[in-house]
């Protein structure tokens, strides 16, 4: 996910940060342009394509029969998978998901699972034998940074787009969505915190913290990344940033 940037560019970006500036003229608390398109994929039960700047992520949701986990025999099953497609970046290679793809999938999984966005308890069919499985497949099409926020937003939009399977076994009036968590990633460059890093910024950032909050501002998932660190104060500031921007991003889910 991280790429090599020339040391000149690196210094330039770090220097800009010192002066509260960014490569593309944004302020530290400003996202790139966001677009959310739902329902592009008819073969999925729900789908959405999110663009944040030039980053592009497609999410398809499939709902199928599955066996429940032994410890929750009456609950539906949630599976999140992410593919960093080789067409999205010269550094992505074909093959099994690497640690970056796995982390991306697991972070989005926790954001949705821990907020109880989907009421999985309603997705049982026959206890211990048959339940509904919700597969969220994250397909990264174009990588210009901040895949976590784009993927979480696309997953949430795709869930809101879900049309339940047309089967007798489906007895709910609609797909049971309870929350709308939104993930905001804050990057630290040269000691400065900024939201929505583009790829060049990611490449020079010391660290990032991704914070998922629900409508009431409470946190449902966090993940620090990168080989740098955060001070306590920085973390608290990042939370305030994430909380504020989450409301803005959530507008795109309507």
């Amino acid at each position: 996910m991280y790429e090599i940037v020339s040391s000149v560019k690196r210094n330039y970006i770090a220097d800009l940060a010192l002066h509260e500036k960014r490569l593309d003229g944004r302020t530290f608390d400003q996202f790139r342009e966001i677009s959310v398109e739902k329902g592009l994929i008819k073969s999925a039960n729900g789908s959405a394509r999110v663009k944040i700047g030039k980053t592009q992520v497609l999410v398809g949701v499939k709902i199928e029969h599955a066996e429940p986990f032994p410890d929750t025999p009456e609950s539906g099953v949630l599976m999140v998978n992410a593919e960093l497609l080789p067409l999205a970046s010269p550094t992505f290679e074909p093959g099994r998901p690497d640690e970056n793809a796995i982390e991306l999938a697991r972070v989005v999984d926790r954001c949705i699972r821990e907020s109880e966005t989907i009421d999985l308890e309603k997705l049982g069919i026959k206890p211990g034998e048959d339940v509904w499985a919700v597969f969220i497949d994250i397909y990264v099409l174009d990588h210009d940074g901040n895949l976590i926020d784009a993927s979480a937003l696309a997953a949430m939009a795709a869930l809101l787009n879900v049309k339940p399977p047309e089967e007798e076994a489906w007895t709910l009036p609609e797909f049971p969505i309870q929350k709308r968590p939104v993930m905001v990633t804050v990057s630290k460059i040269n000691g400065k915190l900024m939201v929505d890093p583009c790829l060049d910024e990611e490449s020079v950032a010391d660290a990032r913290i991704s914070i998922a909050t629900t409508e009431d501002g409470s946190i449902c998932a966090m993940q620090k990344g990168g080989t740098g660190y955060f001070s306590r104060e920085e973390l608290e500031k990042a939370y305030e940033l994430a909380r504020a921007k989450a409301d803005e991003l959530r507008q795109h889910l309507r």
Partner: protein
Amino acid sequence: MEKPEKLIVDGKRLDGRAPDELRPLKIEAGVLKRADGSAYVELGANKVLAAVYGPREMHPRHEQQPDIAVLRCRYAMAPFSVEERKRPGPDRRSVEISKVTREAIEPVLFLELYPRSVIDVFIEVLQADAGTRTAGINAAAVALADAGVPMRDLVSAVAVGKVDGTIVLDLTKEEDQWGTTDMPVAIVPRKKMITLLQMDGHFTGAEFKQALDLAFNACERIYEAQRQALRERYAIKQGG
């Protein structure tokens, strides 16, 4: 879905098309930022994306060829592109399609211009409705041109088949499943060279020739759409 009693009624197919009619076709070039070249193709309900990287340095090095560039193609389907979720990762079908796609495209490239390099073509099927390999080849050809890779010509591809005893163009999923025969064909349009041909089902010799006629005709129309997409892309690039 149950097998319909008839797939062609009064000379019309289930979706209303005549036997020699193509599904609606949409081609767009240059749809991705990071890739060196890219294209998006919609053919009926098929939605396919292709991206090209290269010519670039070949890794691992021991796979470099001293006198030519290596062309690599990878055809893949999104898990949500089909009725029943497909597990990610290559299966035998996609390995074979990747191979024949590469062999369909390679004849139009000047690989000798880039020794020790690799050209990567990635094809992703986002929504599938029969004919994805030919849609992928159409997209790949446009993406290669968009990447500025020197080419003898484009490659245009389409499937023909036999349904209820009639030779038809550009089969849908239902026609593929319940019909008799499927034959994907790729053609280098200017020289009329056939670079991909697969077939399974049943054709008499005469039907085979009739099917080739249909394919050649349709590829001309596809070729025109590909060139139009590149003209539009070029206009935008110029304008930008």
